[in-house]
């Protein structure tokens, strides 16, 4: 794999104005402080941090939903200004449109791009197979289980063939078994299409299973305090969880994370 940089985050600051206790006093809460990192093409980065540390804000900035106060985000060398399908987002919940069927949801982005019907059908078949949701075309999202909804959302994001996938704790809302299934599915998919992924999680195991590199953020204001390359070879599967190396790394990362909780 060539070593091309996909994403550069350069000294990004972000604050929010918040109402403090008394009437109309408005305080400024710094959420991100001088965050810098880069993501290589085809790399999977796991971002760990205590809850409320600004992980999601960082992801929203990369997605183009929010603008940084200072610093800049470059994607393929271009500054990120607005959301775009080349940087698809997988939210914590599936956020499928409840008024569309599974199929209408998945091909939504292709329709926006005015693709012709033949291409839409072909890609739909391909991606619905990839996430294992065949036969649910005409179901509505509320008729699916949480895991199936998240798979549909994954297909909806991947069908755009994004150059990068941003995931905001995408499996956090699922039960433990479904989460394992989804992790396995994502491992399988990442073997097939080699996506560039930046994902947020609070689950150290999940970060170790999925990532090539793990970044740990501090509590507010969030900055990156620890970085580690995950040495496990690919293709991976969930059996690695039992290995000694896995346990050792998990423990090490826990130390860093735990310091931030106090």
């Amino acid at each position, binding site marked *: 794999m060539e070593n091309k940089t996909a994403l550069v985050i350069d000294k990004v600051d972000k604050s929010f104005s918040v109402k403090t206790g008394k009437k109309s006093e408005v305080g400024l809460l710094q959420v991100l402080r001088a965050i810098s990192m880069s993501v290589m093409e085809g790399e999977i980065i796991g971002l760990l941090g205590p809850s409320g540390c600004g992980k999601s804000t960082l992801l929203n900035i990369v997605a183009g939903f929010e603008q940084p106060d200072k610093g800049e985000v470059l994607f393929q060398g271009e500054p990120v200004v607005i959301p775009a*399908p080349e940087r698809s987002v997988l939210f914590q919940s599936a*956020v499928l*449109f409840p*008024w*569309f069927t599974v199929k209408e949801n998945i091909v939504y982005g292709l329709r*926006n791009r005015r693709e012709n019907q033949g291409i839409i059908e072909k890609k739909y078949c391909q991606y619905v197979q990839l996430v294992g949701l065949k036969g649910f075309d005409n179901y509505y999202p*509320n008729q699916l289980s949480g895991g199936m909804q998240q798979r549909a959302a994954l297909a909806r994001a991947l069908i755009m063939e994004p150059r990068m996938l941003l995931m905001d704790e995408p499996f956090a809302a699922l039960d433990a078994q479904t989460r394992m299934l989804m992790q396995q599915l994502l491992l399988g998919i990442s073997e097939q299409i080699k996506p560039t992924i930046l994902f947020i999680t609070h689950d150290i195991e999940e970060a170790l299973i999925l990532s090539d590199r793990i970044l740990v953020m501090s509590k507010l204001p969030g900055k990156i305090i620890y970085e580690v390359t995950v040495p496990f070879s690919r293709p991976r599967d969930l059996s690695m969880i039992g290995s000694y190396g896995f346990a050792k790394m998990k423990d090490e990362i826990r130390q860093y994370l735990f310091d931030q909780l106090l």
Partner: protein
Amino acid sequence: MKQNWEKIDPLGLVLPLVILIVWYLTALSGRVPDYLFPAPVEFFQVLLDFIFGGAQLTPYSGKFLENLWVSCIRVITGFGLAACGGLLLGFLSGRNVLIRRMIDPLIQMIRTVPGIGWLPLALVWFGIGEGTTVFLIALAAFFPIYLNVADGASNVPDIYIRAGSMLGADKMGLFRTVILPASFPSIVVGLRLGLGVSWAYLVLGELTGVSRGLGAVLMDSRMLGQVEMIPVAMLCIAVMGIVSDRLLLILCDWLYPYHERTANGK
């Protein structure tokens, strides 16, 4: 799935039936004189005569359809105007903070004047009859439509907008595929309330002295001493209110077959 407008709950028929029996027994006892309220048998005779004609029991024999037609045109015109204005301004105010800050206070101010309070001015502006009636309907129906549309449009969850724009939808696309379907349940509520108010203000407008329409029948019956026609006209208006509400629901279901799914993922 059973649609809303298909359901008829037998339990809802119990109370009307009880009233009918009590009414019948009261009339039978002879305690209420005919000139205050007609007996059920007479009532139904007049009703049937009003609709189908033939018996010449009142001057309105067989005049149901032509009066209904005139009233319906007024309601449709007034309600249509209100719907256009309410939807347009509702969406603008619901989705654009600048527009909301500009128009909402004024609309809220005008809203506090009861519709009836506009009657004198409407009579001056539009004269007795058609114009005044349509104006009153349009004005009164506008507010519930505007309020509900604005509320629905402003409460579209931000995350849906984000998902849509992340998947490449432009402004028009977002409106069509996200904002409109997400706020559709509120739109339906607004339209239904507006249509209900339309019938109320139809009667008010027609009471001011037009020659035709269900409201005119209602008012003129008293002056002509046809007391038995009054409850008949009232019943016709009530039934028309229900029928038009059902028709509106059917229309909404046809336009947006999935609108019921939108609310709370039901």
